[in-house]
């Protein structure tokens, strides 16, 4: 399959992470964080997701450029009477 899942997935996490970070930065110190133990969870978790998303994107982009390794001889056995 020539669609590397890491690219769309990385993109989604990057965007969601970015939105959360931005929203967290804007609402920093707001009363809404009383329920999350006083922590600006949007900002913190937004950054975590952003970092994860960017890593995935880079891994996906990097893998696209790598040549395919052929399978090791004999490791895929055509056995039985299947199709």
């Amino acid at each position, binding site marked *: *399959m020539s669609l590397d899942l890491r690219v769309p997935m990385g993109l989604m996490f990057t965007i*969601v992470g970015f939105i959360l970070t931005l*929203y967290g930065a804007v609402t920093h110190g707001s009363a809404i*964080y009383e329920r*999350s*133990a006083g922590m600006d969870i949007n900002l913190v*978790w937004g950054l975590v*997701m952003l970092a994860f998303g960017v890593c995935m994107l880079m891994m996906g982009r990097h893998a696209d450029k790598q040549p395919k390794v052929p399978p090791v001889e004999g490791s895929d*056995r055509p056995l039985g*009477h299947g199709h």
Partner: protein
Amino acid sequence: MNLTYVDWLIMLLYFVFVLGIGFALKRFMKTSKDYLQAGRSLPAWICGLAFISANLGAQEVIGMGASGAKYGIVTSHFYWIGAIPAMCFVGVFMMPFYYGSRARSVPEFLRLRFDEKTRAWNACSFAVMTVFSSGISMYAMARLIQTLHVFDGLFRSLGLPVDWIFHFAILLSALIVLCYIFLGGLTSAIYNEVLQFFLIVAGFLPLVWVGLKNIGGWNGLKQAVPAAYLHSWQGMGHATTNPLGVDWFGLVAGLGFVLSFGYWCTDFLVIQTAMAANSEESARRVPLIAALPKMFFPALVILPGLIAIATPAVQQHVMTHTATPGTVASASTDPVGRGLIPAKVDPVTGKVMIDTDGHAILDYDLAIPNMLLHYFPTGILGLGLTALLASFMSGMAGNVTAFNTVWTFDIYQSYINKGASDAHYLKMGRWTTVVGILISMMTAYVVMGFNNIMDTLQLVFSIVNAPLFATFLLGMFWKRTTGHAAFIGLATGTCAALLHHGLTISAGASPGVHGGWITVVHTYPSQMALDYWQAIFAFGINFVLAAAISLVTKPRPEKELVGLVYSLTPKPVEHHMAWYAKPSVIAVILIAMGVTLNIIFR
């Protein structure tokens, strides 16, 4: 529920990406193999994460959180006993046969190993079971959306009646799942399952973090819950001394062996993801890769249940089940709740439901949703809700693709229309998605009568899956096993499970869907004990009967069984792997980790 535009934006983004992946994959779907088997071309890590995600439906997230709140850490048996050993076994011993035999589905493997009738039996019972499961997922999701009042604001502003939310939720989830599977087939389902896996981790990890921080960390949790909640093996000597109402033998044999191996090793819902891997080597690694995160999932799904109990009850932003969405029940400030768990409210009278001892019945299924509402501010609340919706959809999608494959290859191609062109089967696979989803929707309305998702699923699994593992065990590891024996054993095992269910009941239950519908000859201490013993009986009867009949019937010639039976198949090539990359070594490490976790939380 106060959702703001950020929450909606995150939810919307998720739907855009889910459908986008479907559209992006559409152009690769050229043959029925591409569509129904993902072209057998996916890397092991993707299949591995999809392997657990397919199982991560309603049962997992809501059910395990509920169980965590109700019973405590003892719930982790569903993971450490009820999943890890079976996942290791299927990866090391069984995957070479599933993948190497070139069978396209689990029922087709049964045709290669045994005969047509065994396959037909399995294909039909499995097809019914998958749409049933998918319908349950759909129902649970619609019910949850209704209970949490997710769409209430939207509906009011559009001037639509809030009573339609349930139907709208069913239709919306059905349309999204239909769309991405119709376009991209199994690949699309698997890709989205992986996406859902990461979303669930991203949504639940901060929940556990914030929750634990709020109640004073692990030590705070220890002080806030009964001591028995933090031990998984206390009182397991006898059924009456532990909250599950099962003794250790019932637990290990029923859950740990029969049900767990029956599910993880033979259920095409999970096996289909491993069979989509790009090589036999990858296929063997799939369940092993899946076992690692699976081992730590209790921290994500069971722990929130415990935290919900430990959280001091401040009920203003917490919901209860109500008949008419929109009217937040007065019971939400009721003192009978426990932590964040509210009392169950009768949908008709609006009164708190009371059990036979006069205590209020608690609605444990709301443990995780209430945790999200209690601890998450707007913004990350959108992420948490999206994760919850994702978990429901992944459960549904896996069932729908499994139904597609089994219907197209094992029922339609085998018995209805043999020898048609591949393009025809591709078309059939696609349109089966629509039919499968329609049947699921019907099922969702039918199961409205059942109120405990977990028990219902366990019941279906124990009747259909329990005897099945005996058939595979004999078929793969004893070359003497014959087709007649397999079929008679399987049919008798299933009937035995049904009969057992009709003749026994758990303490406190009334005869009907929970057992005892013929007559009550035995009463078990709990529903779980009944399910486990039922599985043990069904397995035992199938195993003994199939072995006995095999000895008096004529076995197939050995040369026909190469690649299908352990003793007649060359061992998989492993010489090029480093010692630590060999499946057997990984499996031993995983088992050792599982044992360690059991010792830590004994």
